[in-house]
């Protein structure tokens, strides 16, 4: 049940992430796929640039998944893949996949992992607009 965690500058293979959590002990596989949207706060987004502090991001991601295993002891397999570098509209930025015996825990664990990832994992997003760029969430 070692989680499959990675940060990559290559296109994310969603099918591979889902396959990574496949197990006969699970009756439910749940996934979240985050993609690049064409607008943010009313501004048109052209592309995104993700930067990662890889070693800390993987350490913190490990903590997040460990918390999920504590909260849902029936959790079987977990995969989290986050992209870094330059992404175009529609590209997959993150995939979270979990496998559990039953569906209720799969929804809850998947949401917990993506929500907590956004709070603690050391990845930064710079949005590129028609007229400039901005680091997301940097200022109040």
């Amino acid at each position, binding site marked *: 049940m070692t989680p499959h965690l990675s940060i990559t500058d290559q296109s994310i293979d969603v099918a591979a992430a889902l396959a990574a959590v496949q197990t006969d002990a699970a009756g439910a596989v749940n996934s979240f796929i985050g993609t690049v949207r064409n607008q943010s706060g009313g501004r048109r987004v052209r592309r995104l640039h993700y930067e990662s*502090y890889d070693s800390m*991001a993987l*350490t913190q991601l490990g903590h997040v998944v460990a918390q999920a295993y504590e909260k849902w002891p029936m959790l079987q397999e977990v995969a989290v893949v*986050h992209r870094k570098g330059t992404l175009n509209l529609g590209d997959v930025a*993150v995939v979270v996949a979990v496998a559990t015996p039953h569906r209720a825990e799969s929804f809850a664990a998947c949401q917990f992992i993506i929500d907590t990832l956004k709070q603690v994992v*050391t*990845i930064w*997003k710079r949005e590129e607009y028609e007229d400039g760029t901005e*680091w997301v969430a940097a200022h109040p």
Partner: protein
Amino acid sequence: MALKIALFGITRDIVGQPTLEMPAPAPATVGALLDRMRASYPALGQLRSCAVAVNNEYAPAEQAIGPNDEIALIPPVAGG
């Protein structure tokens, strides 16, 4: 005693370089380091938050730091 600080995201833009070497503050703690960084680069104080990581973990203000630690400034994260 010199410290090496890794900078990411907007903190790298503010400081203008990806790493910074500086003499350790007295006391050599996370809190004193943040105080000194904010004094040198006031734009850091305008951020929604600015944490310090020591050896890949978020570090509290009272934590001691030394030349063998991997230290980084962590501006507000925005993964996902």
